[in-house]
Structure formats: structure tokens, C-alpha cells
């Protein structure tokens, strides 16, 4: 590099090109104003002369944003173009100046050379001589040095002015987009993202387009139409992976694979697995990835509102599509899509069951929505009711397996709704073709169809769904609970009739077992229903629904919504089944980690009745107290006798060992307790006495039937058992009177003790001690005092009588079936 280039470097920018850039920016800004959308989109005028409604608002909004943004771009380009133009002019000027400086430099350099040459020539002059020559040389050098310094300074000035102009232009260009969305975008992707956030209609359309492209590409890769898809496409579908959790991708897949094709594809995969039996785990699970992917896509588009993230117009379109799709699924679901000779047949709904099963493991947290439950879910249950697919028939070894084998559509449907109480409630309260409620059918009639078969998986799935939908006290929960209890009770009542006698008891065991605990749970939420039923003067043989009264088992009373049971027979049937919980021969100790169903119910009954009795006793009103005793006795007697009848029925057929039965009875008795909240609100002694009463009754009834080897002997001993029970109940009645202070003030025991000198039989609270802790002398004096207190005569007798009355109500109800 020359000294000149080092001292006065040339400027490399191109002012001409910058002027052209400026012209280009200005031209683009002007052309933008020519667009139709920029001219007429801002107010939406140009969209249509007469258009109003939500769609217009969505389109108008999108057009307005587009028009505004186009104008922002155009108006932003203008100052940027001007700034660039200014800089281009400055650059041109600077280049001219630098060129002039460089020329001046060149002239100076030549002048310096000439001056030096002239000075050298003077050295030969004898007159002027060497001294003069040296002086001229020094002067030439000094002048050249001064000129160079001056030129450098002037170049620096030019460069600084150009830089300042460039800085100003850069500021204007960087701020070209002004304020608003996209103003801070650093690159093209940032700008696109910022603008699309303001253009929901466009963003949605682009997302849908991308999703459709993805699925179209998949179908292209398959190399044959979806109608022909089978096991070769398994891996291809699986390759979509988690992409199908995007509702748009899932919708695009379901759109290209309508219900009939979807069902056929699933049927072919399942048939391929079933075509060879005895292969290992790898064979059976070879399509799990494909089915998981399809299941995930399926459940994603069945969810409640999968399009929430889209703009309103796109969401409306998707809702409309979902509605049509559900209708298509509902209509095609009952049809057989596999081999017509398959047993069980593979139907459209079978495919949905397979997909729901697989979705449960692959997309946790995503569940079908209410709309799906009300349409497709309801149709699935109705198809199950109408067809004879359930229970599946045992397959002969020589017959090839069906793809539908092992698929319980009802279990899959109910399991998929576990995490969706709203959708589950909508399904359970759906009305089938015969007018029956879904929950009534699933908890009752369907179970009777499987008599003698293994435990249906749907029963456990139903129990789980009932636990989250039917244990509340609102109208919907109570309606579901009432229908479930009625269906369950009806099935229990009619089981004997179906099989013609006692054989039904054991044949029915497996069918009902999955629901026993949850039925106890439902009844325990409404313990008042037991007394209401026992005391029901109508005791109707069937529901006498008034026109429009579609839920006769749900009643709105003064205390809110509660369950009503049809009659005493049905209540006894339900409670009898609760007593059989864990009584399946050989499986008595198996079951969920919960208390036996009977203990669960009794705890609730004790809590409810004790609280009521405590309230009655606290009033001091004789009638109230008497009513409390009647109710406590009858409810206890009814529940225990109903449970005993159920237990006896099982024993008659199974000859269960005494030890096994006693273990169960002990477990029930030891499980009885009062809720902590109730214990605080009622007198401790009263709660303890009532609890003791029921606990002893449980043990006596249970042991009385099981300490012998057969039910026949148990019945023979029933008289002795009841005699013992009566004795103990009387004793407890005495304790109840003592504890509650059930006497007139004139009969106060402390006053009596003072008036009759001798040992006191009272505790510190002025009430008689428990009988078991009295000495012989105390007991003697206590008996003497109590002879004059009427309650010690009436209350024990009333308790015994009412327990017997409750038990009699059960026997009468059963006999009348």
C-alpha cells in the first residue's frame, strides 16, 4: 500500500447504488399503496357492501390489521429512503473531497521533488554553494511535511462528517418500522412471528395448511390410498409420533382417514395380530406404536375444546367439522368392518375402543369431551345394549382368533372418561334407545347378561367413574347415584329369576363384585335414604314417574338433593350385595385396599343416626327421643338383616369356612368408627355406646351364621343368636339412658344417692357409671334407683323391638319378591 493510500485512504461506498436503493425503497412504498387491501381493507368497506355478523367481524379485523401493517411498512420505508439518500449525497461529496485531497497530495509530492532537485543543483554553484543548497532542501522538506499534515487533517474531517451522516442514516433505517408489533424484530423470522401474532386468521390458516401438508406427505410416502392401508403402514403412522398431539395435525389425519377407513385400518392391524396365536409379546405389541399414535390423534380431536388457541373463525370451522365427524362416527360405529365371520365381530366402535385404550397410555391428561360423550359415547353404549357382543363367547381352539377378542369397548370408553367428570356425567345421564339411562344399564342390566362369566372390566371402570361423578350432593351427582343404585339393586333382585334359584348367587358374584364398594360409597353419601325407604308407606313395586319426571331416584328435599330407593326390597337387595363384598369363595381376602363395603356403609349410618339421636336427646322432647330410638333401631336392624340375608345366600352355595367368615366379620367390626368431625359434635359417651351397639350386632349376626359348618345350622342357631343380641341390646339401652341423662329432674341420681345413704353409683359428671365397671353394691343401688325411672324400662325394650322391626321389614320385602 502506498504512502498516499495510507495517509488518505479512498472511500469505497457507492453513492450511485445507494441512490438506486433509495429509489427502490421509495418505489416499493408507492406500490404498496396500490394494493386493494391497503386502500379498502382498513375499514372493511371494500369487503362487501352488505355483510354483517361474526364472520364479517373476523374478516374485517384481519383485513384492517393487514392494511394498517402495509401502511406502516410503506410509511416506514419513506424516511429510510430519505436517510439513505442523504447519506448517498454525503458519500458522493466525501468521495469528491477525498479525491481532491489525493490530487493535492500528488501535486505536493511533485512540488517537493522539484524543490529538492533544484536545491541539489545549487550545491554545484560556486557562489551560492553548499550551505544554500542545504537550506533549500530543509525548506522543501518542511513544506512537504506541513502539506501532508494538513491534507491528513482535512481527510479526517471529511471522513468524520461522512461517518456522522452514516450514523444518522443508520438510526433512521433501524427505526424504519416505528412503534408496534414487529418493531423490535431482529430478523425475518422474528418479524413474521410478531405479525402472525396479530393475524390470527392467517396464522390459523397457515398452521392448518402445514398440518395438511404433513399428512399429505405421509400418504404420498405410503404409496397407496388410505383405503388399502394395513400392517405395512403401521410404522409409517407411528412415525408421526408426538406431532399428532397438535390438534391441527390430529384433525388433518382424521380428515384424511374418515371413520370407516380408520376402523378398517385398525381392524386390519388387530386381525394381523390375531391371525397367529401363541406368538410372544413382540408379536402382540408390534403395532402398539402405530395404535398409540392413532389413539393420541383420535382422543386429541375428541377433547372438549381442542381449538381454543385458534382464532374464532378457525375455531368455529373446527367445531363444525368435529360435529360432522362425531355424527359420522356415531352412524358408522355399529357396522361390522372386519371379517363378517369373526366372533366377536369387529365393529366401528371396536376400533374406537382400541384407540381409546391406547390413547390412555400415550396422552395422559387429554380426555374425550362432553360433545363426544353425548353423541359417540352414547351410541357406543346403545350399540352394546342392542348387539349380543357382550358377553363374548368362549372361542374354540380350532377357530382363528378375532381382532375384537379382548377388546371391552365399554371398559375402554369408561376408562377414557375417568379424568373428565363432566364428560363422564354427560355419558352416564345419556338416554339409550329404550329410554333407559346409560348408568342404569351399565350398573344393572348389562351385569345380568354376563351371569356366570368372569368379572367384566367395565364394572371396575364404571366404579372409578362413579366415584368421581356420583358422590356429590348436587342434582346431577344424585341423579347418577340414584340411577346406579337402582340399576344395581334391580340386577341383584332379578338375578335369582334369571337363573332360576340359588345358583344365581354364585354365578352373579363376579359380575357385581367390581361395583360393591362404590355402591356402598354412594349409599353412604345418602344415609337418610335408608330410613326413608324403611318408613316409606307406599313401598311401590315400580317407579310411578309423573310425566316429565325423568329422574325419580333424585329428590330435592329441605336438606338438598338426596337419593330415593324404589322400595324396601330393592334397598335390601343393594345392602345384601354390600354384605357379600369379598365373599367370593377363595377370594375373600382379595380386593381393593378399602374397608369391606358393609363396614363403609355402617360407618356412615352410625355417624348419621348417632348425630340424629344426640340431637333428639338434647331437645328433651319425649316424642323426639322416642323417634330417635325407633329410627336408630329400625335402620340398624334393616341393614344388618339385609346383609345377613345376602351372606346366608352365599353360604348356602359356597359352604365358606367358618374361619374365613369370622375373619371377614371381624374386619367389618374393627373397621367401624365415627368420623372425627362427628365425634367432636356429639357426646363422646353416646357415640361410643351407639358404635358398640352396631359393632356387637355385626359380630353376633356374623358369628351366629359362621361358627357352624353350614348355613342350615346357622339358621337353626338364629334364635339363640337373636336372644343374645336382644340381651346385649337391652344392656346397651340401659347404658344409653344412663349416658344421656334420660330422666326427670326429680329422678336425679345424685339427689337419690344423697337421700339414700350408701355407696354412690355415679361418676364425676353426675351420671351412672357404666354397668361393667360397677361393683355389686353399686349395681344393686343403681337397680333400685332405676326402677323408678321410666326410660330404663321403655328405651331398652324399644331398641330391641325396633331392631326386630327393621329386620322384619327385610324379611317381608324379600318374601314379597
Amino acid at each position, binding site marked *: 500500500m502506498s504512502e498516499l493510500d495510507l495517509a488518505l485512504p479512498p472511500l469505497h461506498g457507492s453513492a450511485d447504488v445507494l441512490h438506486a436503493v433509495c429509489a427502490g425503497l421509495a418505489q416499493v412504498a408507492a406500490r404498496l399503496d396500490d394494493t386493494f387491501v391497503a386502500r379498502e381493507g382498513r375499514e372493511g368497506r371494500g369487503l362487501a357492501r352488505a355483510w354483517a355478523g361474526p364472520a364479517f367481524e373476523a374478516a374485517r379485523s384481519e383485513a384492517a390489521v393487514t392494511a394498517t401493517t402495509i401502511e406502516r411498512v410503506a410509511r416506514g420505508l419513506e424516511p429510510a429512503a430519505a436517510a439513505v439518500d442523504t447519506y448517498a449525497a454525503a458519500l458522493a461529496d466525501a468521495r469528491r473531497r477525498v479525491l481532491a485531497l489525493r490530487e493535492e497530495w500528488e501535486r505536493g509530492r511533485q512540488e517537493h521533488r522539484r524543490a529538492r532537485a533544484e536545491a541539489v543543483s545549487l550545491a554545484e554553484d560556486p557562489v551560492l554553494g553548499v550551505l544554500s543548497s542545504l537550506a533549500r532542501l530543509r525548506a522543501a522538506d518542511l513544506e512537504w511535511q506541513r502539506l501532508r499534515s494538513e491534507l491528513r487533517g482535512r481527510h479526517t474531517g471529511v471522513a468524520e462528517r461522512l461517518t456522522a451522516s452514516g450514523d444518522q442514516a443508520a438510526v433512521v433505517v433501524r427505526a424504519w418500522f416505528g412503534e408496534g408489533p414487529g418493531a423490535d424484530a431482529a430478523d425475518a*423470522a422474528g418479524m413474521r412471528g410478531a405479525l402472525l401474532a396479530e393475524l390470527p386468521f392467517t396464522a390459523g390458516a397457515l398452521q392448518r395448511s402445514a398440518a395438511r401438508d404433513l399428512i399429505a406427505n405421509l400418504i404420498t410416502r405410503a404409496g397407496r390410498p388410505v383405503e388399502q392401508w394395513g400392517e405395512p403402514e403401521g410404522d409409517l403412522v407411528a412415525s408421526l409420533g408426538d406431532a399428532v398431539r397438535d390438534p391441527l395435525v390430529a384433525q388433518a389425519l382424521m380428515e384424511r382417514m374418515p371413520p370407516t377407513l380408520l376402523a378398517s385400518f385398525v381392524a386390519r392391524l388387530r386381525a394381523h395380530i390375531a391371525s397367529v396365536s401363541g406368538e410372544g409379546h413382540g408379536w402382540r405389541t408390534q403395532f402398539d406404536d402405530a395404535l398409540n399414535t392413532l389413539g393420541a390423534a383420535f382422543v386429541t380431536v375428541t377433547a372438549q375444546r381442542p381449538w381454543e388457541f385458534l382464532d374464532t373463525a378457525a375455531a368455529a370451522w373446527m367445531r363444525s367439522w368435529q360435529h360432522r365427524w362425531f355424527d359420522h362416527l356415531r352412524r358408522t360405529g355399529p357396522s361390522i368392518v372386519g371379517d363378517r365371520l369373526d366372533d366377536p365381530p369387529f365393529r366401528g366402535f371396536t376400533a374406537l375402543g382400541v384407540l381409546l385404550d391406547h390413547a390412555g397410555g400415550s396422552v395422559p391428561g387429554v380426555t374425550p369431551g362432553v360433545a363426544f360423550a353425548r353423541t359417540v359415547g352414547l351410541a357406543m353404549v346403545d350399540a352394546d345394549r342392542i348387539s349380543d357382543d357382550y358377553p363374548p363367547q368362549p372361542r374354540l381352539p380350532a377357530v382363528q382368533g378375532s381382532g375384537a377378542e379382548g377388546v371391552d369397548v365399554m371398559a375402554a370408553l369408561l376408562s377414557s372418561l375417568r379424568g373428565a367428570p363432566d364428560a363422564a356425567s354427560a355419558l352416564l345421564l345419556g338416554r339409550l334407545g329404550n329410554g333407559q339411562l346409560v348408568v342404569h344399564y351399565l350398573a344393572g342390566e348389562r351385569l345380568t347378561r354376563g351371569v356366570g362369566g368372569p368379572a367384566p372390566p367395565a364394572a371396575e371402570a364404571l366404579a372409578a367413574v362413579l366415584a368421581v361423578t356420583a358422590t356429590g350432593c348436587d342434582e346431577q351427582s344424585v341423579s347418577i347415584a340414584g340411577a346406579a343404585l337402582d340399576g344395581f339393586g334391580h340386577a341383584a333382585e332379578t338375578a335369582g329369576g334369571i337363573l332360576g334359584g340359588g345358583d344365581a348367587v354364585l354365578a352373579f358374584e363376579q359380575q357385581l363384585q367390581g361395583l360393591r364398594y362404590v355402591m356402598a360409597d354412594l349409599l353412604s353419601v345418602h344415609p337418610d335414604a335408608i330410613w326413608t325407604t324403611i318408613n316409606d308407606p307406599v313401598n311401590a313395586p315400580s317407579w310411578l314417574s309423573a310425566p316429565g319426571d325423568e329422574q325419580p331416584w333424585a329428590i330435592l328435599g329441605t336438606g338438598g338433593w338426596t337419593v330415593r330407593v324404589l322400595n324396601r326390597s330393592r334397598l335390601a337387595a343393594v345392602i345384601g350385595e354390600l354384605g357379600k363384598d369379598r365373599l367370593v369363595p377363595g377370594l375373600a381376602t382379595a380386593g381393593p385396599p378399602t374397608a369391606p363395603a358393609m363396614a363403609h356403609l355402617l360407618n356412615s349410618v352410625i355417624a348419621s343416626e348417632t348425630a340424629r339421636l344426640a340431637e333428639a336427646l338434647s331437645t328433651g322432647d319425649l316424642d323426639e327421643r322416642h323417634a330417635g330410638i325407633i329410627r336408630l333401631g329400625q335402620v340398624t336392624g334393616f341393614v344388618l338383616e339385609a346383609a345377613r340375608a345376602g351372606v346366608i345366600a352365599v353360604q348356602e352355595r359356597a359352604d365358606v369356612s367358618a374361619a374365613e367368615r369370622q375373619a371377614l366379620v371381624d374386619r367389618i367390626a374393627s373397621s367401624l368408627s365415627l368420623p372425627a368431625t362427628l365425634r367432636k359434635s356429639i357426646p363422646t359417651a353416646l357415640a361410643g355406646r351407639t358404635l358398640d351397639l352396631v359393632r356387637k350386632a355385626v359380630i353376633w349376626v356374623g358369628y351366629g351364621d359362621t361358627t357352624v359348618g353350614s348355613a342350615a345350622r346357622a339358621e337353626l342357631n338364629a334364635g339363640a343368636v337373636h336372644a343374645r343380641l336382644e340381651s346385649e341390646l337391652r344392656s346397651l339401652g340401659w347404658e344409653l339412658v344412663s349416658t344421656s341423662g334420660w330422666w326427670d329432674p326429680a329422678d336425679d341420681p345424685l339427689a337419690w344417692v344423697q337421700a339414700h345413704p350408701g355407696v354412690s353409683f355415679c361418676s364425676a359428671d353426675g351420671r351412672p357409671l357404666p354397668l361393667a365397671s360397677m361393683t355389686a353394691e353399686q349395681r344393686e343401688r343403681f337397680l333400685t334407683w332405676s326402677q323408678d325411672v321410666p326410660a330404663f324400662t321403655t328405651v331398652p325394650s324399644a331398641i330391641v323391638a325396633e331392631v326386630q322391626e327393621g329386620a322384619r321389614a327385610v324379611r317381608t320385602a324379600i318374601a314379597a319378591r
Partner: protein
Amino acid sequence: MQLRVAPEDLVVASLRMRDDGPLLRSLGEVLAGTGARGGWAACDHPSLAAALVALGNCAGAALGTLADATDTLATGLGDAGQHYAEAEDRLAVMGRRVIT
């Protein structure tokens, strides 16, 4: 929900808007090229050169996005106009059946 529609208006609007997308897209490409040329031409001022390149990219992307928006609107308006017209026809047929 109040709904008032002149289907032919929507179709006309769709047709008039149909050319906007391609125009905007081509202008966006022009801007992207212009920014790059400006960056080269202002090479003596790196900050300005970078700003010009960024303007070209961002403005080009903005116009590309707006082109997508006008395309979507044009398609949507056209489809809506066609569907509304079909619905009108069906209603008219139903109306004639009721009358006759």
C-alpha cells in the same frame, strides 16, 4: 346472531384482493434484494450497512407475511361467498317447496 350477507360482494372482494398477495410477495423480494445491495453500497459504514440488510430482510418478511394474510383473506372471502350463495339457493328451493 344477526347475519346479513350479499354473497356476490364477497366473491368480488375476493377477486379484487386476489392479486394483492403475489404483488406483496414480489415487493418483499425486491426489498430483500435492495437491502442487500444497500449493505454493500454502504460498506464504509458498517452500522448503516447492517441496518440496511436488516431492513431488507425484515421488510421482505413483513410483506411476505402480509401476502399470506391477503391470500388467506381472498380465499376465505371467496369460499364464504360461494357457501353463502349455496345456502341461499337451498333456502330458495326450500321456500318454493313451502309455497307450492
